[in-house]
């Protein structure tokens, strides 16, 4: 039996549980219609209408996403390297240090340019 199969089994159980309970909530819970209840909650004030697909939000989140991608890619390369580190020897070390240094250059730039500031 494939080593991945058990994961699927567990996933199936979890899915069954989650879907089941979400569905159950619809049955068990009472239904008392009230327009106000179906409005977006905004501490009682008239909710600001949201454009479909989410409203606008600070640009910083995009920036964070980009930075995350950069470092995530770094990690993508770090893991295989780390796992077979002993086999790679000094060459692997040097190369990876160069790689990390390169990413660090970008990191330093972002830092100095206030890319990491959340005012």
């Amino acid at each position, binding site marked *: 039996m494939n080593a991945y199969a058990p994961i699927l089994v567990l996933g199936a159980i979890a899915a069954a549980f989650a879907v089941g309970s979400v569905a159950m909530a619809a049955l068990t819970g009472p239904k008392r219609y009230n327009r106000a209840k179906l409005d977006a909650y905004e501490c009682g004030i008239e909710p600001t209408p949201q454009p479909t697909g989410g409203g606008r939000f600070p640009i910083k989140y995009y920036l964070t996403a980009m930075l995350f991608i950069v470092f995530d890619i770094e990690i993508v390369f770090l893991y295989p390297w780390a796992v077979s580190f*002993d086999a790679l020897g000094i060459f692997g070390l040097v190369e990876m240090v160069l790689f990390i240094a390169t990413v660090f250059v970008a990191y*330093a730039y972002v*830092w*100095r340019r206030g890319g990491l500031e959340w005012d």
Partner: protein
Amino acid sequence: MTLAAAIPPIPAPHIEYLQLSPMLAVFGAALVGILAEAFVPRRHRYATQVGIALAGLAASFGLILYLAQAGYATTKADLAAMGAVAVDGPSLFLQGVITLVAVVAVLQFAERRLEPRSGAGAAVDAFAPEAAAVPGSDAERRAATSGHATTEIYPLTMFAVGGMLLFPAASDLLTMFVALEVFSLPLYLMCALARRRRLLSQEAAVKYFLLGAFSSAFFLFGLALVYGYAGSVQFGQIARVVEGTATVTPALANTTGNDALLLIGLAMLGVGLLFKVGAVPFHMWTPDVYQGAPTPVTGFMAAATKVAAFGAMLRLLYVAFPGLAWDWRPVLWGVAILTMVAGAVIAVTQTDVKRLLAYSSVAHAGFILTGVIALNQHGIGAVLFYLAAYSFVTLGAFAVVTLVRDADGEATHLSRWAGLGRRSPLLAAVFALFLLAFAGIPLTSGFTGKFAVFQAAASGGAMPLVIVGVLSSAVAAFFYIRVIVLMFFSDPRADGPTVAVPSALTGTAIALGAVVTVVLGVAPEYFLHLANQASLLVR
């Protein structure tokens, strides 16, 4: 803990750092540039960055010369870095051209006398004061008045140049793809950095980016398919598999038989490259991007990208797929004809100088393609020479465009150029020279280049192509002449644009362009010799 023993050590690959040094120099300069960007105080950045960039390029060019002298172009030409990079004649020649082009481009980027001084009295260049600021916002206004500048342009240029150096030298598909991206991505950004008409430039960037990413995706899928066919992305290996001289492993056996993989893959690779060179029908980005991008960047793009991309195309077609010539040549015939004709014809209707130059660059892509199709050593030499000639003409032409200005930046609409010849004969004459070179009038570099590619194509048995090329260059001549007429024989408008007096930087760029144009037109012998000498692709 005992794993070190458990795993057999992986042999460290052998990297010929000397052969790779030109690229390493440029990339190093780029990194240093970023650090400078991070740590050098703002008021010193401009000087520092320009210095770093020029130093890096100079070092790279010097190394290239050294390698060429040491015979890496001819006798010692070989694959470096485990067969990923080919250091041979074409690579070195094109790398030399690219570095020179980059030097000229950097000079133009550094030009700060054209734009009116900022509120704080600081001289500013052609790039957005603060690229992140929304156009028209207070932030931008503040940045503009305090005379900020996007000095990141220089590291970006360095990265682009690095990628371009690698692109024609790439000797396996993966390296080629990575190089493609490495020089494309900075260009996308540089397109968006115009100081004037920022919306236009940002839109240009979006278009360029989306279409570029689209085409590179095609390239990648082609890569995947070819890999699936050949079981390797190394050009030599691919060629062997295509010719059937490779030892076919049983694992390969079930895919190598499948020519669909190979043909579709090659087609997709072709799409990627043809997009980069702006050949019809993959040219639609060219006019918009050329028009929107800051003009110095446009010049750089138009010149260097073509050089790099055609170099790569040569290597791909001549080294990896000569065995398929019967399949790709007819297609390229069609593309070349389309490109020459469409480029020339559409250009006739243009009313904007930059768009006109864009379409002319499309037409020129077609001319160069005829050289590629020749599929003989003459063809390589001719293409190399043409690229060298064309790139400098282009740089010069766009440099001239930056000088013709009015209240809101460059006056690129043709009607504004009316009577320029009366107002400043010298500039108009130089521009006319460039246009004549584009048109391929004798005694200009354009003519020599055209002659070279055409006679290569003819000797390669593509005479019809030559005739089409000649005819379309006749059409093309028409709109170049039209501009000249406009400049010389129509009365200058009262509210016409002024011709800014450039600093030595742009001056050098234009002068160099003119000199190269004339020299390659009148006494091309040495350079043709060089190009022919360099026209041996290592496999």
